[in-house]
């Protein structure tokens, strides 16, 4: 299983990411709906990094590694930009998103609802965001 992907920091790389996840996750014990959701959550985190931490600079890159163990799948997203710790951001209320006509914030809600665990680590200029999806019991 090819489990590592480098993405250039441009939004056009997101479709490449989905294609990679589609192939890689086809060997994983999740159903179609779960696979779709996990793909979405990983994309949301990568899109956030590409747009906010790297200002869509295609010369910069982020790295995704997919690891599998008995319990589930782990998506490890590494970058060297300004740290964006998902856990520091409260998911906004949906009502708030509508009233303030915000276009952001929804991605964070999705990631937090879809993934079972989120870990964030930042050291020596390197940020690692770990998204964990458990296999159904």
């Amino acid at each position, binding site marked *: 299983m090819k489990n590592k992907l480098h993405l250039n920091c*441009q*939004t*056009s790389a*997101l*479709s490449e990411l*989905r294609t990679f996840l589609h192939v890689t996750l086809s060997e994983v014990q999740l159903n*179609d*709906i779960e696979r*779709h*959701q996990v793909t*979405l959550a990983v*994309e*949301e985190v990568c*899109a956030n990094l*590409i*747009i906010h931490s790297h200002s869509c600079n295609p010369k910069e890159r982020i790295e995704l590694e997919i690891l599998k163990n008995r319990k589930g799948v782990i998506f490890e997203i590494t970058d060297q930009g300004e740290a964006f710790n998902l856990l520091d951001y409260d998911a906004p209320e*949906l009502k708030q*998103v*509508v*009233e303030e*006509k*915000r*276009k*952001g914030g*929804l*991605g964070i*809600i*999705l990631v937090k*609802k*879809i993934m079972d665990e989120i870990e964030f680590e930042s050291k020596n200029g390197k940020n690692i965001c770990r998204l964990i999806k458990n296999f159904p019991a």
Partner: protein
Amino acid sequence: MLQLEKQKKGKNDLLRLIGEVDASNSLILDQAIQELIQAGISTLLIDGNKLTYISSAGLGVFMSYLEEFKEKGIRMVIFGLNEQVIEVFKILGLDKLIPLVKDQAEAEAHCHEE
């Protein structure tokens, strides 16, 4: 890749989404909806039969117009979404804010019932 098709049928304006909406192309969707509002539509039917994927960038576009639609009395209904995409709307609770129906006939009926 995202392709948009507009169609006018009587009082209804139809916007067909073909492909995937993500952060690279959600602006195109935003512009299309803005143009429709400027043209003075009253009913917007979104055809999602060929929409295979939508991320928060695209969902955010729909969300950002909900208030304006309410103020201007514009009705929006989305129809034909596949099961995977519907689930994404449901995770966010968007199915409570935007009517999601099965097909175009149901969408038209929904818009014109009082």
